[in-house]
């Protein structure tokens, strides 16, 4: 495929043209929820179907924020890896087409994961808000 269509394909996926505002939006989810309620959230959150590998302790709310921050960082890393794979491919370095496609797909999946976590988080928060007297 020629360079132009490859560039187009790379930028319509989040890998190449990763929108900075959605990252900020996600970060703002954590800052718009007051820390005290974050703490409460962390204790009721353990029965959401989307389990994380690290158990969410009912300790400080900082634990939860750290987890989300770590998630955002991991996703950003995956996106960066995909971006560099694509630029490596386009500039003729030693990256194979297969590697670049797999990197892009992994970055997409990571991004989807982050979006789902955010959705679940917001849903739980809203449900919690509805529950309070």
């Amino acid at each position: 495929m020629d360079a132009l269509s490859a560039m187009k394909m790379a930028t319509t996926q989040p890998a190449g043209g990763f929108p900075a505002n959605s990252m900020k939006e996600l970060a703002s989810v954590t800052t718009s929820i007051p820390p005290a309620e974050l703490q409460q959230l962390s204790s009721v959150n353990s029965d959401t179907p989307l389990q994380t590998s690290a158990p969410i302790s009912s300790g400080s709310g900082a634990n939860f924020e750290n987890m989300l921050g770590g998630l955002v960082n991991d996703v950003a890393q995956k996106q960066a890896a995909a971006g560099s794979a694509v630029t490596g491919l386009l500039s003729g370095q030693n990256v194979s087409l297969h590697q670049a496609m797999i990197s892009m797909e992994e970055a997409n999946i990571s991004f989807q994961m982050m979006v789902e976590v955010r959705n679940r988080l917001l849903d739980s928060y809203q449900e919690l808000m509805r529950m309070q007297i």
Partner: protein
Amino acid sequence: MINLLTGIDSTSSALDAERIRMDVIAENIANANVTKDVDGKPYQRQEVVFESMLRAQQDSDAPDAGSQTVQIARVQRDARPPRMVYNPGHPDANAQGMVAMPNINIHEEMVDMIASSRSYEANLAVVKNARAMAMQALSIGRHS
């Protein structure tokens, strides 16, 4: 240069080399009966010499270090003497009625042509396979 088809350097060099070889064989066959070439002597058979080269711009710790391309090192004249044929009526016949004909054996040329064509087809198959693999790779992220 984007490297979408693996091994394309080797394969394209082989296709070029085989095409040159075919041209040389065709020239030999066309000139098989030329008794007076531009230098006054009978046409001398040409042959190609292949040599392999490490691919350009390769660093020694890349995984594909060692793979090679091929090129025609030179086209040289076959040093075998011309065939002497008895043909007294020929304008170039010498005092004994012998004519010096080019040192070309048609059967040899035909065998070379078949070998060259097989090698060309094999390298075409390599390119087809590389393309099939690239198309497979492009469908990796595709959702139905």
